[in-house]
């Protein structure tokens, strides 16, 4: 829309309309399954936002979505489609586990930065290999990152079956990180301020995720490197003319993007489960693509989209718990529809909305003239 004052159509109205459409589709499916619609919606809402516990879980899941959304968005700004989030998060978790287990017993103040650095290094370097292949050998970033997802999950299974396996456990999990080494939960943190909240897995990595969002904003729009990143993403020829090296930007961007996604491991392992298992990523790496799409690759948008996704995830599990006939699949249904309408079909309603807008503004101006 080139008309004046039409910008908010794309930024606000369109995403909202997309979500409404997704919910409408959900309602149709739930209705077909014979589930009471208003009940279901109330359950999802109550589950996600109705109680302190629900809100805690929602934000806990949102943390994962923020990290993966930021990572995907950063790569997107350089014109790269990083769909290797699963693999990068896996390696991030591995990095956290190794740091926490080998440094067990040192002060948390020291461990915290070290485990974060280890996490970022593992996941960043995992993303570096496809980045190098793309920058210097011309291999396609989508193909190589998706292959690296498979390699990462095999690697994790291999390590959990051998080197990292806890000796006294039947299942493939690592040793448990001692509670002294775990990330402080929000409950503990707020207790320092004499605020009492329900115990949830929500931990300080949520704050870190918010800091990362602010950082990404400043990085992309207020630094030299971010400027170069955006120029590469828009027009490689212009970038080449201005003397910006694509190789350098691809390497740096993928390192940072991988590191951001890798922090899912920090939240999941040092924050909640305290031990490495083979399914902790649980699709969060992939959902980052949908979150970034819905958040328009903008940090603020990503936070909003993440909270929505977190709410759906948490509310959906609540619903799944109560409606045994549908079970866990309800979460994937809702998520899938939201991804479909907000991601794949994100421009579907654009012509319609613009048409309505222009008819509306026309009749308006005519009224004024009359």
């Amino acid at each position, binding site marked *: 829309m*080139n008309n004046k004052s039409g910008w908010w159509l794309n930024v606000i109205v369109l995403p909202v309309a997309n979500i409404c459409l997704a919910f409408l589709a959900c309602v149709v499916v739930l209705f077909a399954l014979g589930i009471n619609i208003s009940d279901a919606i109330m359950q999802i809402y109550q589950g996600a936002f109705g109680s302190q516990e629900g809100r805690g879980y929602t934000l806990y899941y949102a943390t994962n979505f923020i990290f993966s959304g930021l990572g995907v968005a950063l790569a997107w700004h350089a014109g790269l489609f990083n769909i290797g989030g699963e693999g990068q998060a896996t390696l991030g978790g591995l990095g956290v586990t190794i740091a926490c287990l080998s440094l067990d017993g040192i002060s948390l103040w020291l461990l915290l930065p070290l485990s974060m650095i280890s996490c970022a290094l593992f996941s960043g370097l995992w993303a570096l290999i496809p980045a190098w292949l793309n920058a210097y050998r011309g291999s396609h970033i989508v193909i190589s990152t998706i292959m690296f997802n498979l390699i990462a999950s095999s690697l994790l299974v291999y390590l959990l079956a051998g080197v990292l396996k806890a000796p006294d456990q039947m299942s493939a999990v690592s040793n448990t990180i001692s509670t002294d080494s775990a990330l402080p939960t929000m409950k503990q943190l707020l207790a320092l301020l004499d605020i009492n909240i329900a115990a949830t897995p929500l931990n300080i990595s949520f704050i870190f995720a918010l800091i990362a969002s602010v950082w990404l904003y400043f990085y992309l729009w207020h630094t030299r490197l971010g400027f170069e990143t955006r120029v590469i993403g828009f*027009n490689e*020829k212009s970038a080449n003319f201005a003397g910006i090296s694509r190789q350098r930007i691809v390497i740096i961007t993928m390192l940072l993007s991988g590191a951001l996604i890798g922090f899912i491991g920090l939240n999941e392992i040092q924050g909640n489960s305290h031990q490495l298992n083979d399914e902790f990523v649980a699709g969060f790496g992939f959902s980052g693509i949908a979150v970034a799409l819905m958040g328009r690759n903008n940090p603020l948008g990503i936070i909003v989209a993440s909270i929505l996704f977190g709410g759906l995830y948490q509310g959906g599990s609540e619903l799944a718990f109560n409606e045994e006939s549908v079970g866990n699949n309800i979460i994937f249904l809702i998520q899938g529809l939201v991804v479909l309408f907000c991601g794949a079909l994100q421009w579907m309603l654009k012509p319609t909305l613009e048409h309505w807008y222009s008819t509306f503004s026309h009749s308006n101006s005519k009224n004024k003239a009359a």
Partner: protein
Amino acid sequence: MLSPALQLKNIVKYYQQVRALDNVSIDIAPGSIHGIIGENGAGKSTLLKIAYGLLAIDDGEIFVDGVKVNIDTPQQAVKHGIGMLHQSTSWLEKRSIIDNIILGDSNQSWVGRNDVSARFELEQLCREFGFSFSLDTLISALDYSQRQLVDILRSLYRGAKVLILDEPTALLSSSQSSHLIELLSLLKMQGVSIVIVAHKLAILHQLCDVISVMSQGMVIAQVNPRNITMGALSKLMIGREITLPHSRVKKSIDHRVERLKVTNLSIKTRGRFGFGRDALRLFDIDLTVQSHEITALVGLPNSGHELLLEVLSGHRGFTAGRITMNKKRFKPSNHYGVKQAHKMAIASAPDPLLGIGLVKELPMYESALLGYHQHLSSDISFFKDSLYIRRCRDMMKLWDVRPVLPELRSGYFSGGNQQKMILARELSHNPDLLLLSQPSHGVDVGATESIYKRLFKLREQGGSIMFCSTDLDEVMSLSDRVVLFEQGQIIGQYKTQDLTKNELSLMLINEAACE
């Protein structure tokens, strides 16, 4: 009276908050040549894009042969018999002319191709309009002006009754313009209407039946060129008469220094895998450039002069020889890149038609930093947006870039204003050596004049300028020295004041005859 072949009525178009077209009405009579002139940003390109369905209108009506139509896509425009010659068309390089023309033609069946009838039809068109190329020639073998002719043939084959020519620069070059005039008069006799937008007033004045003058999104006059002189026409367009400034009036300067010296420079490309042709793309270039001097590099396309500019600006390496810039010596092994070039006060601006001098999606104030963002302290320092916006606004005012809106997307500015902004950026860092490619491609006369003035000012301050141009008028009025290239070699250097335009064009044509 016949209804017009194409009628645009009360067209209104906005770019964001800028009103690009304000109630524009224009009638194209059948079988006429209709010229549209105006300064950069007057809305000419926008109007043509609307007629061809590339842009949607915000208000207004379009009539074809008196019937109201909706043209929302180029496909619909083609269906209504409107064809357009683009500034940059993309081609399948490795396929023949006929393949490229048939491609995407709706008369073709889904499976298989109906080559025979298409070939028959095309050959007939070629005979009729005097196109001399064989339909089986590969596109890659054609030069830019021949490609534009193929583009015209394609439009005719699709049944164009109205042909829109947006800046057919290559066809307007001095060696081709006689051909174009012939072709257009043939087209006219067949009842095809032609709409032509160009900055070369002289040719339009000679060619057109009607000329519409646009200014700031409005048609301000419609004249018959037979009743008006060239000078009056440019006065209508700009509001004053234009005489391109000449470089020859100048004092001799004693304190000249040697700015750039190129010795035995060669580029040898090696075929892949070590075999194939070992072509010399530049061979033994020896060239010295002084301060206070403007040098024109002239040659037929792909003669190596464009390559030399790319080497000097740091965009491309070389394989043998030496470059000495401000007494610093560079061999192929330690050749500078673009960033170092900027640090050494070497600035460059690409051919405006390539559109790579700025980033169309970024706001203008960010485009105005491009290439010089390296100079902004460190990697992690914060961009001070307000400072850059203010600087950009100053630059815009100084160079008369319109509209003066630093936060508007760069792509929304017209081609000429984009070029002014690029030059403003490059000149604002006081370069010692400025490298330009086709500095006035797509730039109107008024803007060209102000660009020339600033280039002369740079020369006065001691800068050296090197430029490539296919426009011999530009070479004659801008340069102090002409360096002639042929097949990657320098075949002659002349002082511009010792040459006439005719001599220069003869030298270029002789060169072509030798090939």
